[in-house]
């Protein structure tokens, strides 16, 4: 890090501390926590785009898969639902996998021609019908178990911290499938393919109630940190809060947020250390060589396709990890809240503004853009108040302008992205 980079980080820290001093420390810590998570997502996207030039606009899907990981690992299992249809659902899913695998075997083993196509299509149709026949009753049985409270299989009941790597693994698995099919294609096609897969992941989370309760949401994920209520009831904590002169209720929320911030910071620092090591190793130089000239790298004997797949999986896994962390922080999985503008394109703004190809840049972008994303709204409201102060009260235009402030943030993000791309295309902390 150069002096300039350190100054930029100090500036962002000042922004967050300033929020604490002027607005509230709760908001400031909230920004810090999501900033840490955003920075991790940005690291993942930076790996794919900055190191290797892969254009992934399916970040949302991987983040959501991470959230699913948190549910699968940490929620208590619903024994009744498992008894009702767990085995059958498993068998159905296996059948689905077998029919897809079989179709691939048919395609690769049989001789070219209409026979092969026909055989594969017939195999797939039979497989699909059998899959539905086995799977559907299981789903109905599982979803019928106390739908208001559970209606899904639940998770494994393990500590939620374990879900972070599991979320990463889920995302990595999805990335492997996508990478295998789409990475050989050119950049625009990869973009559309990842955009599509992200929508499909969200559609699955919304509709497969047996897995994720769908739009009924999974709430009350276990926490890795103490609950505010418990803190407020512990005499030692209350005494300590009063000794520094903070109201125990505020102190408990701040303490919980600080605990999260500590956990997230450990993950982020570990990831930065690993990514810096990777980027400055022969592997990282090879990646950049492939990015800058695929043909030349291939001529030097580098396996471009395999390396692309590798870095695609790594980056997606990091996004999944961040997704699991975010579900942990929120304490819930709400599939309806995943919006591509917020979870895919905003991460891209972070990477581009921070500086693609530079890990520190991506992290800085994560913090800065998240800060702006949160703070543009109150700031916009303030500006709008000022701008409309001359208008008569109750005029429809004034009401409309004040109501629409919430949408200022999209506009601002777009303007920031375009300005950075135009005047400082290498970002705040350029690659070196």
């Amino acid at each position: 890090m150069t002096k300039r980079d350190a100054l930029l980080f100090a500036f962002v820290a000042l922004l967050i501390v300033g929020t604490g001093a002027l607005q509230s420390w709760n908001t400031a810590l909230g920004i810090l926590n999501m900033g840490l998570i955003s920075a991790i997502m940005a690291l993942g996207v930076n790996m794919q785009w900055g190191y290797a030039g892969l254009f992934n606009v399916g970040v949302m899907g991987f983040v959501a898969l991470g959230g699913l990981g948190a549910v699968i690992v940490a929620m208590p299992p619903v024994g009744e639902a498992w008894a009702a249809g767990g085995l059958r659902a498993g068998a159905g899913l296996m059948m689905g996998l077998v029919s897809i695998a079989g179709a691939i075997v048919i395609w690769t083993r049989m001789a070219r021609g209409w026979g092969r196509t026909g055989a594969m299509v017939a195999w797939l149709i039979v497989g699909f019908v059998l899959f539905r026949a086995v799977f559907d009753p299981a789903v109905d049985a599982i979803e019928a178990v106390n739908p208001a409270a559970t209606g899904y299989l639940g998770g494994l009941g393990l500590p939620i911290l374990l879900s972070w790597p599991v979320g990463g693994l889920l995302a990595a698995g999805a990335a492997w499938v996508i990478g295998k099919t789409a990475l050989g294609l050119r950049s625009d096609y990869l973009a559309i393919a990842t955009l599509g897969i992200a929508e499909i992941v969200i559609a699955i989370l919304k509709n497969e109630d047996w897995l994720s309760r769908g739009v009924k949401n999974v709430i009350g994920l276990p926490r890795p940190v103490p609950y505010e209520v418990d803190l407020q009831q512990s005499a030692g904590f209350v005494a300590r809060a009063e000794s520094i002169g903070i109201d125990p209720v505020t102190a408990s929320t701040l303490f919980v947020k600080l605990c999260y911030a500590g956990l997230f910071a450990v993950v982020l620092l570990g990831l930065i250390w690993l990514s810096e090591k990777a980027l400055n190793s022969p592997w990282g130089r090879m990646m950049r060589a492939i990015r800058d000239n695929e043909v030349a790298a291939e001529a030097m004997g580098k396996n471009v396709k395999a390396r692309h797949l590798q870095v695609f999986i790594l980056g997606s896994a990091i996004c999944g990890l961040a997704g699991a962390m975010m579900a942990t922080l929120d304490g819930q999985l709400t599939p309806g809240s995943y919006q591509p503008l917020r979870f895919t394109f905003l991460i891209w703004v972070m990477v581009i503004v921070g500086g693609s190809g530079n890990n520190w840049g991506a992290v800085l972008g994560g913090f800065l853009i998240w800060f702006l994303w949160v703070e543009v709204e109150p700031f916009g409201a303030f500006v709008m108040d000022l701008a409309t102060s001359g208008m008569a009260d109750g005029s429809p235009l004034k009401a409309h302008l004040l109501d629409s402030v919430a949408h200022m943030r999209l506009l601002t993000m777009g303007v920031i992205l375009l300005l950075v791309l135009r005047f400082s295309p290498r970002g705040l902390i350029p690659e070196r």
Partner: protein
Amino acid sequence: MEILNALVVFANFVLIPATAYGAQLSLGALGVTLIYGVLRFSNFAHGDTMAFGTMVTVLLTWWLQSLGASLGPLPTALLALPVGIAVTALLVLGTDRAVYRFYRREKAKPVILVIVSMGVMFIMNGLVRFIIGPDDRSFADGERFIVTARDFKQMTGLDEGLAIRTTQGLTIVTAVIVVAALFWFLNRTRTGKSMRAFSDNEDLALLSGINPERVVAITWILVAALATIAGVLYGLDKSFKPFTYFQLLLPIFASAIVGGLGSPLGAIAGGFVIAFSEVTITYAWKKVLVYLMPENLEPTGLVQLLSTDYKFAVSFVILVIVLLFRPTGLFRGKSV
């Protein structure tokens, strides 16, 4: 009789809706494909361009409605449409001047332009939500049906009714006119030919004295017209909601790629391929099968292959299949 009833059900729930939806997708995909052919990048802001054009038209329609203007049985939105197109054209020309031109002069890589279009997408999306808000808006008026289900039953004496909504008829008629005009323009006029020449081989086109800025400007105007028409037709047929238009990006891209990026004919074919697969795969076939199957074989379930929420999955799977087996699309588009 049974077969006729089955046919009517099929037409009512699959054929007509899918044709209208296919026409809307085709118009959208034509815009994407034109930008790809001439400016050589995938425009992520296309869905939001559609939303912007529709928004202008919606606002104008409301104003016209408040004045009491109407087209009788046709939706008033048709009166507002030309103005909507003009405003959208001004917006995209302004965007091109302020944003894209710089990168064109720099000869930036296509992927940079895609990222730039992401920024434009953010701005347009914010603009639309800022002006009209994120909620569902309906602006259709005039006669609702060309043929209602009841009239059809009385006319034919069949058990099943066939309803054709005005908006569906309008969509198909408009799409045919627009596509015919576009192909006439591209194939017969001097400007259209220069556009195709520019798309085929930029250097050669420049050598023959074609003014690139003019070609680009005309492309943007055509794209604004196509996007606004597609958006307004979709909005009349369903309803206008900014987020839905953003989500349309996926099936539109799928249509353009399935047909072959850069090929106008392909965009139309792709639009219908995607629309028909979406509708047929997410339609519950029970009603049709009840008429076709002998009574003891009648299906008990809905016979729906996938729930309607997975319609994006359908366009995606078709996209992947086409990309894997025929990477340049059905009509041999470009591949850079």
